[in-house]
């Protein structure tokens, strides 16, 4: 395994788009070559070395390459976009679109991540240890097909539109979410261990959502069918008792979506 260490050196007055930062692009390149790769700042294309110091060479292949970003980069977007293998470790917070369209490999963000992490991701894994904002694993505007494979794990909270249009794969939120978690999903699994504000599973036509905490405002188009305990989805365990709902009957698709809601935290439902 070859490690390439990028240390942010500033110049982030305007945000930077760095989709070039993937193990695929770094593989087979020297530190020098990597520094010459171009990133976008506004309409300018500038060398990566203007923003990061580069240490270490890429491995022989993507799988063989680890990129370590040693610092905070909330204003750098699109790290790991469409990567197919290898590893990216961000030791601080990441900007928008981290791991967007990702196909394989692993991304770890030790801090927070901005919106659109893992948009339309197809494979691999993203682990965000802090919080994130909107559209985790979501579909692009106008599309009904979001993330279709792989796994996103958020240890902290997410805000809106988690997993919008999810088709496959898993999203696990350790903390809480706000609005439209699992909007219009048709497959896959979303587990929220904390609370949700409203509109969980709205317009869902398939797939599974589990909410371990309390849902402040329940989505009206769901019907309770059962109570189940100690849910298990492969390696993902959700202990405790859950009310099982099907829906969303607001959408004329026969309510093939499944929504589990913790019994203890949602007595009024």
């Amino acid at each position: 395994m070859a490690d390439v260490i990028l240390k942010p050196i500033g110049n982030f007055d305007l945000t930077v788009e760095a989709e070039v930062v993937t193990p695929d692009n770094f593989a087979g390149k020297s530190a020098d070559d990597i520094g010459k790769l171009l990133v976008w700042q506004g309409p300018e294309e500038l060398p990566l070395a203007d923003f990061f110091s580069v240490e270490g060479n890429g491995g022989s292949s993507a799988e063989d390459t680890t990129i370590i970003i040693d610092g905070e980069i909330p204003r750098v977007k699109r790290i790991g976009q469409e990567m197919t293998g290898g590893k990216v470790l961000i030791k601080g917070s990441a900007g928008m679109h981290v791991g967007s369209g990702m196909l394989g490999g692993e991304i770890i963000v030790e801090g927070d991540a901005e919106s659109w992490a893992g948009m339309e991701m197809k494979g691999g894994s993203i682990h965000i240890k802090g919080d994130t904002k909107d559209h985790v694993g979501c579909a692009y505007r106008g599309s009904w097909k979001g993330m279709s494979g792989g796994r996103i794990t958020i240890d902290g909270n997410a805000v809106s539109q988690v997993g919008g249009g999810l088709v496959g794969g898993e999203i696990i939120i350790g903390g809480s979410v706000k609005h439209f978690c699992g909007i219009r999903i048709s497959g896959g699994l979303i587990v929220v261990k904390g609370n949700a504000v409203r509109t969980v599973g709205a317009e869902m036509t398939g797939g599974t959502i589990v909410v371990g905490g309390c849902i402040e405002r329940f989505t009206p188009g769901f019907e309770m069918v059962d109570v189940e305990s100690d849910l298990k989805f492969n390696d993902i365990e959700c202990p405790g008792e859950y009310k099982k709902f099907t829906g969303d009957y607001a959408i004329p698709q026969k309510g093939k979506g499944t929504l589990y809601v913790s019994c203890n935290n949602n007595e009024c439902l």
Partner: protein
Amino acid sequence: MVYKNIICPVCGGSCDDVQVNLDKKNGTIDVQNACKMGNAKFQEVVSHHRILKPTIRENGKVKDVSWDEALEMAADILVNSKKPFFFLGSETSCEAQEVGLHIAEYLGGLADSNATICHGPTVMGIQESGMVGATAGQAKNRADMIVYWGVNALESMPRHMSRYGVFPRGYWTKRGRFDRTMVTVDPRVTPTAAASDLHVQLNPNSDYELLSAMFTILNGKEPHPSVEEITGVPISVMKQTVEMMKESNFVAIYVGLGVSSSYGKHRNIEIALNFVKEMNNYTKCNIGALRGHCNVAGFNQLASYLYGYPFGLDFTKGYPRYNPGETTCVDLLREKDVDAAFVMSADLMDHIPAESAQYLADIPMICLDIAPCPSTTAAEVVLPGVIDAMECDGTFYRLDNVPVYFEPFTDSPFSETKSNEDTLKQLFAKVKAKKEA
């Protein structure tokens, strides 16, 4: 001199029956058929506060300069910017907006318009669902049920009810108001709500749940009982409203910012649009947005056909990109992600939250407008605006996306420019000359 059939450049209603009597000698204008807002705007032609000279701000002091100096300085600001932002406001023609878009594309900047802080979420909702709508005359001729949802038509588009929505006598609605049932859904008791046959007073931020429950009812299912507390509306009223719709021959729903701007944003619109789509399996049902600014629909149309996206266009990579929240005005300013701004025919400073406004005041800003306002106060360069539909011709799109061609009844007060389109073309020429030098 009396001029008839003038188009009003104030709101999306684009009333085309305004009559003006302009007395140039005495500097007065008499206006008929326009609403209060329209009348006030027509007075701008003879107003005393009209901006008539370009100004620049030097060391905090505002001074008059020649048009050429102002355009030079504006071009300098844009050319020296690393990431310029263009706010191409809706109180001007598509023709002017088109030049603005071309400059933004040329410089690799970003361009947005009033939709972003108005019906942007409505457009985003359409992108999620599509929209079953019609030109305004369909409701006028056919609708026997009108729903104003989250919109206070009487105050935001004062002539909507009389021209398009409720009162007009159409082909199958010869008795006007008497042939129609009017419903308003609003958390406030607005004048529109007061004028309705039924006012559904929902809790703020609960439009999604109310629509979702009505949709569930439409699909023959019982909504979860908690929805009564969430929305403040009894399920029986929801059922009654759905039944009223199904029993009508033609339902026209108008949505406003109450739906698209409250929590839920484009998802509120999305569920409304989906509901309307399904309602068409039972009766004829249309939906449309009441658009407050005169040509806000025009920018959406123009930007879509020229570049593929309706607002929030990002040209930084040399081709159009679009992602509201990332490439849109309020977010770019809040995140301090642009370094110069060109604001045309919209008082942007007034319309955006403090954090964004503060940054806009920090960066070099060029402002093109007709009257003093917060944006012109904070601008480095102020270019006087020409009033569309009064002083030059051009195109607006009205609320239902029908384009109207407007013609002036007087001339531009400036010998240096015929129209905002003309001003922008002059600016573009200077920008090109500097960039290519």
